[in-house]
């Protein structure tokens, strides 16, 4: 499976998940959100990927990630801009095609949602500028790398803080931490698929990724449950409301994802560690996991707008 086919499959999965989210009752702007969140997650992952290799090879891995990072952060920046305009149109009741500069500026400066969008746009732009100005990649622990990691993390978690749960500080923090853990897990795996090519690299990196991702899953589940508990009034909301139904779908996808990850941990990880897994096997394993993650992320985007 070449890169183009993989990208096509990924796009199809996101489109399919968006269509399902629409069927579950969330508005069309969730597609813009899905593209935006997906690009943000991949950006964060690409910045973090070099930390998984041993010190000696980090520079090489960062250089390999550099081109992908430029592309991902550029897509993220443009998507954030479009999202801001679509959000302004929605708030003002204009159609997205007719919305003007005045409304957009008023939305971006006067409303909490607009200001959060502005923060995320700035974060995305910052990562994009760092990526454009470091042609040899951002080496872990260098100043541009720290800047890029910080900005990407703010871009991923910032909106959650004012999302659904702006009225409840506990819920807001829980959802922000949940989003960050999910972004690190999915983003780094996406980064691995894009950047890692040799069997030897998989052997070095996969055990570290596995360790990191299990922590991510624990954090993700704990804070996800807290967030859901704060948002839902009763268990019957899980199927009785649109929000609850999208949430249930997300829970189901997460269960599939964790089962998949557990199986990979039992089979692929030992094989890769001892250099037995071919690159083809490693790639296809990671792509399957990534596909399910893309669906979960799209549903997460839908969750944030449903209602």
């Amino acid at each position, binding site marked *: 499976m070449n890169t183009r086919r993989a990208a096509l499959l990924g796009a199809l999965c996101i489109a399919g998940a968006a269509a*399902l989210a629409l069927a579950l009752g969330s508005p069309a702007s969730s597609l813009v959100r899905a593209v935006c969140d997906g690009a943000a997650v991949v950006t964060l992952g690409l910045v973090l990927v070099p930390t998984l290799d041993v010190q000696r090879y980090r520079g090489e891995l960062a250089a390999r990630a550099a081109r992908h990072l430029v592309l991902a952060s550029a897509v993220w920046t*443009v998507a954030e801009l479009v999202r801001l305009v679509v959000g302004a149109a929605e708030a003002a009741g*204009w159609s997205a095609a007719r919305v003007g500069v*005045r409304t957009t500026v008023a939305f971006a400066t006067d409303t*909490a949602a607009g200001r959060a969008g502005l923060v995320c746009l700035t974060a995305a732009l910052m990562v994009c500028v760092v990526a454009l100005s470091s042609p040899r990649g951002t080496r872990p622990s260098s100043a541009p790398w720290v800047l890029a990691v910080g900005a990407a993390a703010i871009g991923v978690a910032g909106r959650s803080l*004012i999302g659904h749960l702006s009225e409840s500080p506990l819920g807001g923090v829980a959802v922000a931490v949940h989003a960050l853990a999910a972004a690190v897990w999915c983003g780094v795996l996406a980064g691995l698929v894009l950047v890692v090519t040799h069997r030897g690299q998989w052997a070095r990196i996969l055990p570290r990724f596995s360790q990191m991702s299990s922590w991510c899953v624990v954090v993700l589940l704990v804070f996800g449950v807290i967030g859901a508990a704060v948002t*839902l009034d009763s268990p019957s909301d899980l199927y009785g409301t649109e929000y609850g*139904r999208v949430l249930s779908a997300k829970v189901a996808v997460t269960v599939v994802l964790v089962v998949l990850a557990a199986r990979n941990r039992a089979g692929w990880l030992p094989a890769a560690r001892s250099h037995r897994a071919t690159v083809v096997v490693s790639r296809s394993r990671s792509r399957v996991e990534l596909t399910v993650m893309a669906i979960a992320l799209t549903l997460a985007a839908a969750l944030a707008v449903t209602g």
Partner: protein
Amino acid sequence: MIRRLTAAALIGAALAMAALAGAGVASAHAVRVAADPAPDSSLASGPARVSATFNERLQTDFAAMTVVGPDGNLWSTGPVDVAGPVASVALLPLGPTGPYTVNYRVTSADGHVVSGSWSFTLTVAGTGSPGPKVGKPSDESDGVPVWPFVALAAAIVGGGVWVAVRRRT
């Protein structure tokens, strides 16, 4: 391959089940919890203001509220007032008997748009004169369109990427 198919089948089944469960009321966003006058109430004389109370604070910007009478005319007047979770608008002295419909569109504190309407009935004709006819959605434009600027920004970012990627290969 089998694992992939199994995963796809599982997700498909879960989502289909969720989709088939039918539409309900969303609970996670702002909802209207009270209205004055009450929905479907009958009044002998028109109130000075109509108001809607929500379960969350509202943004003060981008709120809209209109009252349309049985004659298709606008009977609300002045700007929409937003105070905490309450949005309200002043009414003209009402005229003909019949149903008056209040339409609203507000933005909750978390940035979500909530819109809806409710009606009340006037049973004794008043002497007020209506505002303008409510016609087709207004053709007023929103000033300078924003999309050219978005396209320009996208072109600048795209150009930067193109240069960066070319430099590297």
